[in-house]
Every structure is written in C-alpha cells, then in structure tokens.
C-alpha cells in the first residue's frame, strides 16, 4: 500500500457559478482515520463523490491508492468501500442480493462470497435481516445494510458520508465501535459528518471545511497529542464550596497539573487512564475536599469547530 492512500490535490469543483470546492488539498496516509467536518453545503459530500469516482474535479487531481478514480476505476476502487449520501435501493431487492452483487463486482472469489457477505452483515449487525427485501426494512436497518455493503470485500479505504444518519443511539454506538476496530486493523477512513462525537470517538485527525475551502487540518485530540509518553487525561472537577489552586494541587499530588476555572470548578491534567484517574480522585476525597462531580470537559473539538467554521449549523 502506498504511503498516501488518498490524495486531493488543489481541487476545484464548480457547478456553473457555484464553487463547491476551492483549491482543496489534503492527503490521508494508510491507516489514518480522518474526520471531515463542516456545515451543510461546505463541500464535504462533493469531496467524497470525487474520491469515489462519482464525479470529476473541474480542476486539480484526485488519487485513490495512486490511481485516478474516474480514469482508472477498477484499480482505484478495488479496495475502496464507500457510502456517499443516501442511495436508494429498489424495494424488491434483498440485502443479500445487494451484498452478493458488491462482493462479485469487487472480485471476491465465488467460494468466499458467502462468508464475505456474512462478515459485512455481521459487522453492522444485520445478519438476520439480509434475507428481507429493502422495502420491509426500517430507515436505520436499510442504512446499516448499505454500510454492510460498503464493508464487503474487506476494503482498505473507507469513505463514509454521514454514516450515523438515521441510526438509533445503539446502532450509532455500535457503528463507532466497528469503525474504531477497523481503524485499529489498519483501515484508512475518511468520515464526513455533522456529528462531532463521531469524529471525537473514531478519528485521530480532523479536517474543517467551510464554503469549499479547507480551513483546518489538525489532530482531533490536542490534549492527547501534547502528552509525552502516553495518553493524557483531562478531568473537570466540581466542589460543593470554593477551593484554591494550592489546596487542590496539594490534594491531587505533585505530578498533577491543576487549574481553577471557577471558584468551585477546576481541571486536572495528568498522564494515564482510568486507574490513574481513580487514584487522583481518591486522594482528593481523602484530603477532605468536598468533591461533587468529576467528568470529561466539554468537547474541545466543538470549540475548535466553532472557531474554524463559525456558528452556522453548529452540530
């Protein structure tokens, strides 16, 4: 696999007078999970359509695994799974019909097709529904079936456009887990979404798009990336009475970075995970500070979204 799996190079896309994309350049390396955030009409779906070979750039070039997805469709799209917008499927077709067709076109050998279909369906938890016609599936189930189709053939690159749209909270949670696991296994993911939680939970890097212009390309979790020697935990703590930074720092321990945001609220930053967090909070309580709650801070990504993109269409 080439180091750059997806490349969008100085791409412009015009629809008559409308400039949907303006000089957009970015690339994804193999195994990267990248969120693509922006308001309605920013050009996210247009970008994904270009990468999936559904559309051509007016200017600039697009490459998938080194190949032009329009000129060299077979090689560019062979190991790509894509779900762009919400495709309709004729109501009489069954889920298994669609998944088998995708497997066949993706070159899955006849003997392995059934298992490829089963794996895709199981990943999206729709295995028991593959025999049902699309017309009998709920919106969420049909969406999951389409996601299963995108996963058939074990793609190395996945392009997803608002994948959690229409899913209930449990299915949304399951999908995020599936995507996280796929990312861990080395899949390259470009996830276009309105939902910051999707990006926060799945992606390591985020692109911000506004009015067709790329306005940000940065790590999702700046706190984590700033930490040396492992993950950094940030915990917002609230107390029943006013506290001082000295008392909180003394209680939490020397290695803990402490700030006081409001008289009764502070933030603890430290290296580690759940075990370390439990130990820190235990020390705070044992020191006699009236701890009321401890939680993750407001999503920092949401703040950055507002900074880069503005208040329009805040997710």
């Amino acid at each position, binding site marked *: 696999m080439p180091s750059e799996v997806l490349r969008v190079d100085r791409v412009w896309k015009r629809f008559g007078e409308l400039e949907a994309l303006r000089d957009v350049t970015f690339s994804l390396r193999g195994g990267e999970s990248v969120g693509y955030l922006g308001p309605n009409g920013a050009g996210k779906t247009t970008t994904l*359509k270009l990468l*999936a*070979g*559904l*559309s*051509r750039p007016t200017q600039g070039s697009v490459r998938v695994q080194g190949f032009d997805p329009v000129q060299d*469709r*077979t*090689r*560019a*799209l*062979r190991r*790509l799974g*894509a*779900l*762009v*917008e*919400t*495709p*309709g*499927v*004729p109501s*009489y*077709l*069954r889920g298994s*019909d*669609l998944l088998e*067709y*995708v497997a*066949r*076109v*993706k*070159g899955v050998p006849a003997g392995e097709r059934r298992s490829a279909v089963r794996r895709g369906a199981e990943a999206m938890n729709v295995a028991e529904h593959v025999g049902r*016609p699309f017309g009998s599936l709920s919106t969420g189930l049909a969406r999951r079936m*389409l996601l299963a*189709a995108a996963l058939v053939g074990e793609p190395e690159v996945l*392009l997803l456009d608002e994948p959690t749209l229409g899913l209930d909270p449990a299915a949304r949670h399951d999908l995020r887990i599936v995507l996280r696991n796929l990312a861990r296994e080395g899949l390259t993911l470009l996830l276009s979404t309105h939902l910051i939680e999707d990006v926060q939970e799945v992606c390591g890097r985020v692109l911000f798009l506004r009015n067709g212009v790329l306005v940000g390309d940065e790590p999702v979790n700046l706190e984590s990336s700033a930490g040396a020697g492992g993950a950094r935990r940030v915990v917002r703590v609230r107390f029943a009475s006013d506290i001082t930074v000295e008392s909180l720092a003394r209680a939490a321990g020397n290695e803990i970075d402490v700030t006081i945001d409001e008289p009764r609220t502070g933030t603890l930053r430290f290296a580690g995970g759940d075990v370390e967090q439990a130990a820190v909070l235990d020390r705070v309580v044992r020191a006699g500070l009236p701890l009321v709650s401890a939680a993750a801070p407001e999503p920092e990504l949401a703040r950055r979204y507002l900074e880069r993109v503005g208040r329009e269409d805040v997710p």
Partner: protein
Amino acid sequence: MASLIQNAQWEVTRLRRSRRIWLFLIPIVAGPTGSAIADLYLGVNSAGTAEVLGLLILAGLSSLVVLDLTALAVGEDLALRTHYLTFALPQSRGAALAGRLAVVVTGGLASYGMGAVGVAGLANALITTSSTAPAPILMPAHLALGIVGLLIFLGGVTAAAGIVTRSASQALVAGVLAGVVSAGIGSMLLVEGQLTPLFPGVLAAVGLMGFVWCLLQYGWIES
C-alpha cells in the same frame, strides 16, 4: 467482459425479485393466444392475413415489454440514486449497463421470436386459406423481421431517454411516443405503397445509435 457478465446476472436477479421476469411470458403466451382468438372471432379467411394480424398484436405486446424493462434498467437506479452505490464499485459503468441491457433487450427479442413462432403455428393450424381470400397486405416473414427493427428502435430511444430524464417512468413515456410516431409513419408508408425494408432498417439503426449513446453517456453521468 467480467463486468458485463456480473451485471447481466445482477439484472436477472432484479427481474426475478421484482417478478418482472414474468413479463417475458406475455408475448409468448398472450400473443399467439390473443391473435388466434381474434382470427376466429373475425373469421379471417387467410392464414397469411391471420399471421399479419397476429404479428401486429404481438408487436404491440413485445414493444411494451421491451419499453418497460429497458426504461427500468436505465432509469430506475438513476431515479432512486442507487447509482451512488454502484458507480463507486470497481467496474466500467458502460459495461455494467450493457450487461443489464443485454438481458432485457435480448430477452425481449427472444420472447418476441417465440411468440412469432407461436403466432405462425396457430394461424396455419386454425385458418384454412380460402381460394377467394385476398393476399395479405404484408409478407408475414418480412413483417416479422421488420418488427425486430421496431423493437430495437424503441429500446434504443427509451434507453437514451432514460439518461436524459434520469427516470424510468419518463423514459417509458418517451418510448411509447416513439412507438406511436413510428407506427404512424409505417402506416402512412404502407398506404402510399412505399413501405420497404429500408424503414425497419432505419429504425434499427436509430435504435442501435440510441443504445450506444446511452452507454457512452452513462459513463459520464455526474452524480
């Protein structure tokens, strides 16, 4: 070639699941049966005329089958946006559509062919040609071949209309209109005694051009 075969199989699956595959039986069963009933009811006194009458009935039925299935093969996915899924697959779009059209067009023509054999068989079995019967207005064998040209024309026009309108229903309407126009022109030429093999030949050529244009355009559709 692989895309062609895979999509031909895909079309067969779609025909089966939607039960549209039964449409192929209409020309085979209803064509000969309907024309035989008409022959007997009208008291047709010539096997040749009975064949001509039967072929015209069969042409109407076969046209509707070819129109309907071609319109759906081209326009259904575009209208439903299923192409957002299929266009992102590693295959030539033109070859994919060609595979699907191959099934519906050859299926429609084969169905017509079997119906024509049935019409000829029943006409000759049920009707005894009277010595005073006038000669049929057209040679049955010529008409049978001419209808093939008509079916190809209607399929091509409908396929092209499916690309332009991105809708199966509107493509179907365009195909029906083309059928009405071609039938009108054919009738006029017949009345004026100028109906020659050139007419169905031109129809077939226009139809083939329609298919080629459709396949080329399909590859360039911007979603």
